[in-house]
């Protein structure tokens, strides 16, 4: 099994790319891949209890929930959460410090940054 880590870095509300990256992450589970998704920097805004569909932005929440259902690791960087002042996180995710995120990336066979 290959360990594949997808790293999201951008804010979700000015691009479709986060939603596409999450769709891709789900797709990656179709082969023998252990998929991990990591939210860093502005991408942690994706974890807020927001309603992106109300501004006609793709509803990416269902992708995160499906990754949970498929037992994929979904991780957010602690430093990014603190820096952006994210209080309430809507999804079931792991919070790791920067060192932990770096270890996760180092432990990967492939890394896809988005």
């Amino acid at each position, binding site marked *: 099994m*290959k360990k*594949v880590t997808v790293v999201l870095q951008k804010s979700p509300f000015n691009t*479709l*790319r986060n939603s*596409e990256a999450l*769709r*891709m992450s*789900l*797709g*990656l*589970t*179709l*082969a*023998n*891949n252990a998929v991990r998704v990591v939210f860093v920097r502005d991408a942690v805004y994706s974890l807020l209890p927001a309603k992106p569909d109300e501004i006609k932005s793709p509803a990416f929440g269902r992708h995160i929930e499906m990754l949970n259902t498929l037992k994929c690791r979904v991780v957010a960087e602690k430093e990014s959460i603190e820096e952006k002042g994210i209080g309430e996180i809507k999804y079931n995710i792991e919070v790791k410090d920067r060192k932990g995120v770096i270890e996760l990336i180092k432990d990967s*066979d*492939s*890394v*896809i*940054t*988005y």
Partner: protein
Amino acid sequence: MSYELKEKKQRLGILLTTSPESENTFTVIKLTEAALSSERDVHIFLMCDGVYNINDRNFVSLLDKGVIITLCAHNASERLLEKREGINFGSQYDLAYIVNESDKFLSFT
């Protein structure tokens, strides 16, 4: 009877998600040519605006050199791109297998 043991070719997988305006296209073309010259198989997957690379003559010329190019048909359909000969209109399922079966995988996003 003698058996010739052939060494399995190394496989390079590439994900390209940016349109041809990005320098990524040039980088991918040159990197692919270098990989081919060192006897590697190359499989490129296009998604997001990367699907527009099928309009780039230099990029598409990689097909003649033996490169396999697959794209996300969903993204191509969103951008009203029509099917092209030689290019596989596939899905994320294809990307999952490219990532899984490549010896090295690079993403240009």
